[in-house]
């Protein structure tokens, strides 16, 4: 049987990749949204693993809720992206610095 630490390490790696995706990515907002999805997935992975490990179904059921929220969130994100593109003719992250103090 695969020890639980393997699962947890995998989810941590995915999480780290997604964070790096947010920080290091300076080009495209689409990639940023994808990184966010990845982050959610890593968290879901954690939930399922630990739910199984502890024999508690709540964690696994909770994942469904998270997935729903994630779907809604990405739908909103994409809609915002379209509106943004209409106004700025660009989805470059570096162009979105209008809040600069």
């Amino acid at each position, binding site marked *: 049987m695969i020890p639980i630490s393997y699962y947890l390490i995998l989810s941590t790696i995915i999480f780290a990749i997604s964070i790096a995706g*947010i*920080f290091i990515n300076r080009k495209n907002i689409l990639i940023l949204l994808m990184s966010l999805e990845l982050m959610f997935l890593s968290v879901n992975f954690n939930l399922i693993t630990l739910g199984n490990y502890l024999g508690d179904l709540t964690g696994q059921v909770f994942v469904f809720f998270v997935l729903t929220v994630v779907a809604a969130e990405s739908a909103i994100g994409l809609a915002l992206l379209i509106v943004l593109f209409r106004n700025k003719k660009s989805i470059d992250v570096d162009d979105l610095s*209008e809040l*600069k103090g």
Partner: protein
Amino acid sequence: MIYLALILLLAPLVGTLLLLYIQNRSKRLSVIISNFSILLSFFVSIYLLFLYFNYNYLPETHDVLIFADTKLYYLAFGLYIDSLSLMMSTVVTSVSFLVHYYSISYMKNESSFNRFFVYTNFFTFSMLLIVLSNNFFQLFIGWELVGLSSYLLIGFWTKKESAIKANYKAFLVNRVGDIGLLLGLCLIFVNYSTTNYAEVFSLSNTINNHDIEIFGTSFNMLSAICLLLFVGAMAKSAQVPLHFWLPDSMEGPTPISALIHAATMVTAGIYMVARLSPMYALADDVSLFILYIGTITAFFLGLVALVQNDIKRIIAYSTISQLGYMTAALGASLYSLAIFHLMTHAFFKALLFLCAGSIIVKCHHEQDIRNIGGLRKFMPITYMAFLYASLSLIGFPLTSGFYSKEGIIDAIGYYDYTIPYLMLLASIFTTTLYTSKIFFKVFFGECTLHDKNEKENDKEMLIPLIILTAPSVFLGLFIFDILMSGELFGSALASNALVIDFYNNYVTNSLHFFLHSFLTVNFLILVLALIFGYYYYYKKSFNISVPKFVSTMLEGEYGFNNLSSKYIPIFQNLFTKYLWKKIDILTIDNGLINNTSAILDKISNKVRKFHTGFIYHYSLTIISALILLLLIVRMQY
């Protein structure tokens, strides 16, 4: 009784509020409200006086409203009803009412007619607050309100520069006195931890011998309190050296001068000392100081009146001098005589001022007596009223002024205060001289009116003159015996024994006092001064050349003129400039306000660099902060 006394006190205040509400809507309404509120309080005080003496009420002190009642202190709004406060409020309201009535005609062409009555009603209210108060806290409030309303009234003509200067002066001089009063109140509060008159009196009997250290010298506690309170009285009652605001207060309308000089303002100091007589009677050293201050004021300021030419200023100096008599009587512990002179003086001085007002109106606001003359034929009623008031002022036998003033002078002589006695005798001469100066110059001599068909003023202005003549002449005779034998004030004033002793051994009764007076040196001085005045001012049969330095000294009021109009302003200028430059501009403007904004500007300029606008910077911050937080939480367990 307490409810009636409340009506007496609050009627003028209600009048003020109503007048404020109706504004300039109708002159008629202003007149009705202002006059009736005072009239109501006059009737109530007469009724209370009647009740008090007919049913032998005892002095009553009553707290109506309690502001604070803790272990540390107790503050209340209360009334003190006894013969002294009732007599005083009767004098205040009667004179005030007559002045109000007189003002209807005097102020009829004034655009801010209503404002005048608002102020005068408020003035009367604040004086009544002092008179009826039963604690020091309320006394102080009334004291300040009197100061405020006199400030407003002296500067009633806000566009007249001299009036503005005069009210500023009056206000500042009174502030000096208020500092004394306030310090005295603080000492009372610290030592007796109560502000109620009755409690302080009973405590001051027991705790009066412990000392207080001020700047290394020790003072008797009670003396220190009395002295500080008297400084307040000196400013309000225009005693040397805080007297110089009073002649300038003549810049206000003439009815106001009558009100200030007779009933509502300058008497406050005298009244306060008399009210606190149980304390002053125990402080002998302070009493002696008061006696000398009073005598100096009576003599030296009377002299100044001789060289003045403005009719109102002469009467003003005469007021200061008469207040000196009252203060001297207070200093000699003859409290009931002081109050007696206060009452008679209130009536004849109000009468003198109202006469002066009607003369001024007739002469188209000419106040210099060198330019007024021969008014006797045109103003017979004013002439008669002025004559009686003058007789009362100089203390001609049988008039009110005679009984009160001769009483004071003779009693001071009787108790062997030699120097004050001689100075007061000498000021009989000056009093008579300046009175005859006004009298002969204004009513006799060449007529200066252009229109030879001039008639007397309106009847609103004449009726108060006629009414005031009665107490000016007869009040003294009427109450002399009951007052001197101690029946009138009873236990309200301390040291009654002194006056009663003087009465029994020297006066015996009013008739005897009257007959005896013809044989005294007082009467001789009076007659000499009258003859002198007659030949000097009326016949002009001889001329006296006064040495130059004497006349400059008198005209400059012993340097007080320069002091108040030159040196104090220079000092004040320097001081306020210093405050402006160093405190206001340097500390507050630049230091606190501008500096704060400059510092904030610098900080925010640095802080806003963090706001790059890039999402990944923000999210980096959020996540690193989150990690940090988790680490901290981890370290806790």
